[in-house]
């Protein structure tokens, strides 16, 4: 217990009323240190704060964007065909679904779904195999447990993609068959084409033989006419000699060639000469007649020949035309065959990666995760800052000191800002260590952006903290701001898929610009001056929140 000698100490060194400086660096630093000591002294608050970024990055690194696996499912096969067996065995081999049961009826399957044992039931209707084999289309029935909406949408998508895969397989098989048929058709046509390819040669052969025959006929006719003339002349000569002979015998006064044969016969008795001449005439006349008959036959044969030749020529020309068609058909079959082979994958996509090859999804997600973590941490974490201290009275003691409002605000905000920067660095570090994320840009640029953004975010936290009277009030308001911002940050759902109103709202959120700026540096490797727009907006954001904090910060207790 003190005694009188303590007296001087207690009343000594009276403090001279100090003037409040607007910004007092010593006091700002004292506030920062104090906040750190308070945080350090509360392990229950400190540890989650440090662990949160690590947890976030682990969740996103491992969980987000992953392909779902092993959704429990069952199959009912009403078809019992080779096709259905193949479908079943293919399904069993998928990662996405884990076929736990084979049931006999749909009702059995539904019962399993009711119990929650399966989420998806595949039903192969009767006759599916037949329909597919006969070239028709068939449906597989799928029953999905809608009550678990997150699994339901994934299951539906997976089932559809499985069906698409299956369809694509069957189509490929059918196309292969078509292709084979086309190949054999082509072979047939090739054979047909071979025969009709001789047509032009045949045509020219026919034409040339026609010409040869025509020329022979002409020659024959000429020769015949010559010999006919000769025969006629000979007969005439003989007849003349016979006539002369007759004149000499004065037996016949007149005769006509017509009656020459009778005359001939009656003259036979008169003389051997006359007889031999008459015989000669007769044989020459027979010869003429025979020549005539021969010519007539030859003419007939020639006419027939010409007719046949013309027909053959006509047919040959026709077959030439069909040869063209055959040729065309042949090339079409060839095309069908080739197309069938390529039908399954006509257009592929080759990704051209603009920001480096071999980067994983997490690389591109990291800036948004960072922005979101900072925003959340800053808006949710400042409850104790002003609101809490006001409630528990420690702020009152501060008000009794010559410390300006600006100093109090800046000191508090700078502490939380530093905290957010450290947390962000931790997050990035863990991302690099655990997931091998690669950062393109300049580290100082990144920290610079983080710092500016964190100033604005802690600014929001400060505004809320000075506006509210208790930590509970603070949390209520902070949640209202931070939860929607989380969803509009683009980390969980792409902003582009949202309705225009929400997209417009996202434009007002600093988190959008921070994520953009960070992407610019971390992914695209821009130096800071290229993202000036974003930087200026973030600075503006900080200025606004600071102004609001000053406006709302009440020094009076009431």
């Amino acid at each position, binding site marked *: 217990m003190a005694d009188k000698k303590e007296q001087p100490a207690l009343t000594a060194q009276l403090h001279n*009323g100090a003037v409040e400086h607007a910004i007092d660096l010593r006091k700002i630093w004292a506030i920062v240190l104090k906040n750190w000591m308070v945080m350090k002294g509360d392990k229950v608050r400190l540890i989650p704060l440090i662990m949160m970024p690590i947890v976030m990055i682990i969740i996103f690194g491992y969980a987000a964007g992953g392909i779902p696996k092993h959704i429990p499912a069952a199959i009912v096969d009403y078809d019992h065909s080779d096709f259905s067996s193949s479908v079943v065995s293919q399904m069993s081999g998928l990662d996405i679904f884990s076929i736990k049961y084979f049931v006999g009826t749909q009702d059995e399957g539904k019962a399993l779904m009711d119990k929650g044992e399966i989420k998806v039931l595949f039903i192969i209707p009767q006759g599916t195999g037949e329909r597919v084999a006969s070239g028709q289309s068939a449906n597989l029935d799928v029953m999905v447990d809608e009550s678990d909406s997150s699994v339901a949408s994934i299951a539906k998508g997976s089932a559809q993609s499985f069906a698409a895969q299956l369809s694509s397989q069957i189509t490929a098989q059918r196309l292969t068959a078509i292709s084979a048929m086309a190949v054999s058709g082509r072979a047939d046509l090739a054979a047909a084409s071979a025969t009709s390819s001789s047509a032009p040669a045949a045509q020219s052969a026919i034409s040339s033989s026609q010409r040869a025959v025509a020329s022979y006929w002409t020659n024959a006719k000429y020769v015949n006419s010559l010999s006919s003339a000769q025969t006629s002349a000979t007969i005439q000569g003989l007849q003349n000699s016979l006539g002369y002979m007759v004149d000499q015998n004065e037996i016949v006064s007149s005769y006509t060639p017509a009656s020459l044969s009778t005359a001939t016969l009656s003259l036979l008795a008169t003389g051997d000469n006359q007889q031999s001449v008459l015989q000669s005439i007769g044989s020459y006349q027979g010869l003429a007649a025979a020549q005539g008959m021969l010519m007539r036959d030859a003419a007939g044969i020639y006419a027939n020949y010409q007719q046949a030749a013309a027909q053959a020529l006509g047919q040959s020309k026709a077959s030439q035309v069909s040869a063209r068609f055959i040729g065309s058909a042949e090339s079409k079959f060839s095309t069908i065959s080739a197309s069938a082979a390529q039908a399954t994958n006509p257009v592929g996509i080759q990704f051209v990666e603009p920001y480096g090859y071999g980067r994983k999804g997490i690389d591109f997600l990291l800036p948004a995760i960072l922005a979101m973590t900072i925003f959340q941490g800053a808006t949710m974490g400042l409850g104790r800052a002003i609101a809490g201290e006001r409630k528990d009275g420690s702020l009152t003691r501060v*008000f009794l000191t010559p410390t300006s409002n600006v100093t109090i605000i800046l000191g508090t905000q700078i502490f939380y800002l530093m905290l957010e920067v450290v947390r962000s660095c931790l997050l990035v570090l863990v991302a690099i260590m655990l997931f091998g994320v690669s950062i393109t840009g300049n580290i100082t640029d990144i920290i610079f952006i983080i710092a500016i953004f964190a100033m604005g975010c802690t600014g929001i936290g400060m505004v809320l903290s000075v506006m509210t009277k208790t930590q509970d009030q603070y949390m209520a308001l902070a949640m209202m701001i931070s939860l929607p911002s989380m969803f509009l940050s683009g980390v969980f759902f792409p902003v582009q898929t949202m309705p225009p109103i929400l997209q417009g709202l996202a434009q007002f959120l600093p988190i959008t610009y921070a994520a953009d700026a960070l992407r610019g540096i971390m992914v695209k490797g821009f130096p800071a001056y290229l993202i000036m727009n974003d930087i200026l907006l973030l600075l503006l954001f900080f200025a606004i929140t600071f102004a609001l904090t000053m406006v709302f910060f009440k020094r009076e207790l009431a």
Partner: protein
Amino acid sequence: MANPQSPYAIECMGITRKFGSFTAVDNLTLRVKKGELFGFLGPNGAGKTTTINMLTTLIRPTEGKALVAGFDLAEQGALVRSRIGVVPQSFALFEELTPIENLWYLGELYEMDRQTVAKRTEELLKIVTLYDKKDVQSGTFSGGMKQRLSVAAGLLHSPQILFMDEPTTGLDPQSRIALRELTQQLNQTGITVIYTTHDMDEADKICQRIAIMDHGKLKALGTSKELKEYAGHSHKIILELDHHDGKLLEELKKLTDAISVTSEGKMVELRVKKLRHDVVHKLTDYLYRHDVEVGEFNISEPTLEEVFITVTKKELRD
């Protein structure tokens, strides 16, 4: 108006504080001398805390003026604050920090020289007997210890006036006693102490002068003795006698100069305005000589509670 040489630590001139239509403090006028241990006494809601808040510049008065430590409350707030220290109702320090760290922080905010802070921290912690716990997180302290730390914090920058707002509320009896002793000790070193409480007994025990407040108004002001006299209260001598009669009672009354004497069964009550120093001797002597056996012998003082009821009832009657 400001007068640092004034013999008064505090001068209130009709200060008033309204919250909307509710008047928390109504036209308070009083003066506290330098070096006094001055009490504000009244029930919850009487306006004590609001008065303290005004005098410590945490709230502005809606009307009236006041001088604290010789400086004008409204115009020279910073100077006022430099001369006053506060022990608020709540702990108002950081439970995660040790006493040394808490005092360090305040020292920084008061722009005190670090060596001075170190020295004073050691001195103050010794005075409030927390020196052995100087590196322990203050969240682990008992209520009494926390309050003592709060006192040390209030004194860090050597204020002339220390405002203590219901400092013993919620403490166990031993801690209360310890704190009261500490308060008196501090006061003896020359610091003016403004002490608010709703505990009439406590005010009676330690405050040199007391302002009784109710519904925002000053009801009575004076030393404990003055107040009791003003309210017309008297001491009571209560005796348990094995036998008595009217004559005996009359004699006792004369002997003690009592205002009245009443009896109920064996109990006899004498109301005495002024308690004479030899009254006990006289009484026991007389009773012994008259063969009266005394079972109980009680002398009770008038209480401030009685004063309070009287004072407020008077107000109502008026």
